[in-house]
């Protein structure tokens, strides 16, 4: 299949269906309404089910229900709506259930703005809900990458029996660009081992899925989930290391910000500036290794570029960089978008020692 022009939200929705999603529940919120709208048409075509929930809270719990019977289920929302879903996401993790959550983020806090922003990094990577669970967070920067990551997201979710988050901003959700869609995945023929319901009527012990753990069970769960997150750091990190070999200046950016930064970096390279970029594709697990292997004798400064103010990824960068080089930050927020000139000027300030 050739490349076609698709809108961000629709490309993600289609990729999820191709990746096996057969249930979607969600509640309208800008800027991600094209995702449920697309699903309302598409899922019935493949024998799936779409429900417009009465709230974000209800929707995430519908996803939880669908996951208990082994169906690949997802929901999407935007920042304030994701906050409402956070309890349910915690329950998913607590009950060892897979699901796909998509946050097409907008500016905050509060009702904030419907315009794009990258203001949910801390929520996504540190505490997507109560109780100290973690989840893999993918942050694509192009629609092709969004399609590819979404397509495989259920594989991670089912492997770990844990929800997976895809985090993009409203700009990537609304943009139209070229994507190549993968083929429809074959759905697993065997029942999931946690699957409730017994369509074949086989004799088996009754199953229970819950996130309530009397006594010692919960500590065991906490340990297991903790070890799982450590293993992600060893096996599942995804990162783009762009022109780092001789880099004296290292930009750190993800998602839409990384695209704008890449344009600036390419321009500066043409002028002979030794600059590169670490672009986390998984925000969690964070690509620590990319920072550890840098030659700190060469690196003069880091520039954290995010479409939020103040920068939220900075603490993760600082934990790796320590005091070996200064970290500068540049961002726009509140629905004001980053732009080419602004990012270039911010980097040039650092180069000229004026930051």
């Amino acid at each position, binding site marked *: 299949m050739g490349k076609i022009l698709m809108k961000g939200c629709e490309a993600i929705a289609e990729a999820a269906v191709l990746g096996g999603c057969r249930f979607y529940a969600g509640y309208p919120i800008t800027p991600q309404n094209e995702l449920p709208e697309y699903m309302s048409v598409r899922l019935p075509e493949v024998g799936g089910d779409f*429900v417009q929930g009465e709230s974000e809270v209800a929707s995430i719990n519908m996803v939880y*229900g669908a996951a208990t019977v082994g169906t690949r289920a997802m929901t999407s929302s935007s920042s304030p709506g994701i906050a409402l879903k956070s309890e349910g996401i915690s329950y998913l993790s607590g009950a060892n259930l897979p699901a796909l959550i998509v946050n097409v983020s907008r500016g905050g806090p509060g009702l904030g703005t419907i315009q794009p922003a990258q203001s949910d990094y801390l929520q996504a990577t540190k505490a997507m809900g109560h109780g100290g669970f973690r989840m893999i967070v993918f942050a694509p920067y192009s629609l092709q990458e969004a399609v590819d990551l979404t397509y495989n997201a259920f594989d991670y979710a089912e492997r770990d029996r844990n929800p997976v988050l895809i985090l993009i901003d409203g700009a990537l959700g609304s943009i139209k660009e070229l994507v190549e869609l993968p083929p429809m995945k074959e759905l697993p023929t065997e029942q999931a081992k946690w699957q*409730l*319901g017994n*369509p074949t009527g086989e004799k088996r012990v009754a199953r*229970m899925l*819950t996130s309530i753990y009397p006594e010692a069970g919960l500590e065991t769960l906490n340990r297991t989930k903790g070890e799982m997150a450590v293993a992600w750091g060893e096996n599942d990190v995804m990162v783009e290391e762009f022109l780092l070999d001789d880099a004296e200046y290292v930009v750190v950016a993800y998602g839409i910000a990384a695209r704008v930064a890449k344009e600036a970096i390419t321009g500066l390279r043409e002028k002979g500036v030794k600059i590169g970029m670490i672009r986390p594709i998984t925000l969690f697990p964070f690509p620590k290794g990319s920072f550890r292997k840098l030659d700190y004798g060469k690196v003069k400064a880091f520039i954290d570029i995010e479409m939020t103010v103040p920068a939220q990824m900075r603490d993760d960068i600082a934990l790796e960089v320590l005091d070996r080089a200064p970290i500068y930050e540049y961002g726009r927020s509140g629905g004001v978008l980053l732009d080419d000139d602004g990012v270039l000027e911010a980097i040039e300030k650092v180069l000229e020692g004026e930051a």
Partner: protein
Amino acid sequence: MEQLYKRPKCIQPMQSGYCPGCLHSLATRITAEVVEELEQQNNCILVLPVGCSTMGLLYWKIDMVGSAHGRAPAVATGVKRCSKNSLVFTYQGDGDLAAIGLAEILSAANRGENYTVLFANNSIYGMTGGQMAPTTLEGQKSTTTQKGRDPLTTGYPMRMCELIATLDAPKYVARFSLHDPANVRKAKAGIKKAFETQLAGGGFTFVELMINCPTNWGLTPLDSLTYMVENTIPVFPLGVYKDVEV
């Protein structure tokens, strides 16, 4: 000798942890009997909420999922939509269903989800220690209405069957009581009818079961049954509120 009365096989062989005289046990038992009479013990999924009813997780021997407080109807929506041949039911208390979960129950009922909600109404939050519920009677004492519920500041008892029966989609909506054997038999028949309606693909069914809470009402089990007859049932009239042929 013929055995007339035995423990349903889909209930664990253990003593119930519900308080002495609590009708949650009886509600569980008659539901289990219906499940077995319909031969659904290998084909059902019970969605349990938060409250005393959560303890069902310990007693049942069928597939179960525990959900967040008030969200059982949303969870059951996801379950049933993706497992259309299973008998799916929730068993929720009044704080769970009529307060925190009001949006979920009314919306699921309004969508006509094809599952059954069993609603145990004892006019109080049991598990958390006896706070006022939306179903607490006027003047009834609770730990958060220590002088008795005052409608001027806390409103009136909320009647869920009556609310749900106003919606177009639900197929069967009825309220029963478990305070005496004759009513228990009626309640069991009501649960059976609801399950059969669901299995026939009929749509949303809602069965309210009036029960007691001797512990938090501060009454002996026997006195609590008298209290139900004299006080609770007059406020929550028993009967079938909606019965649509499917």
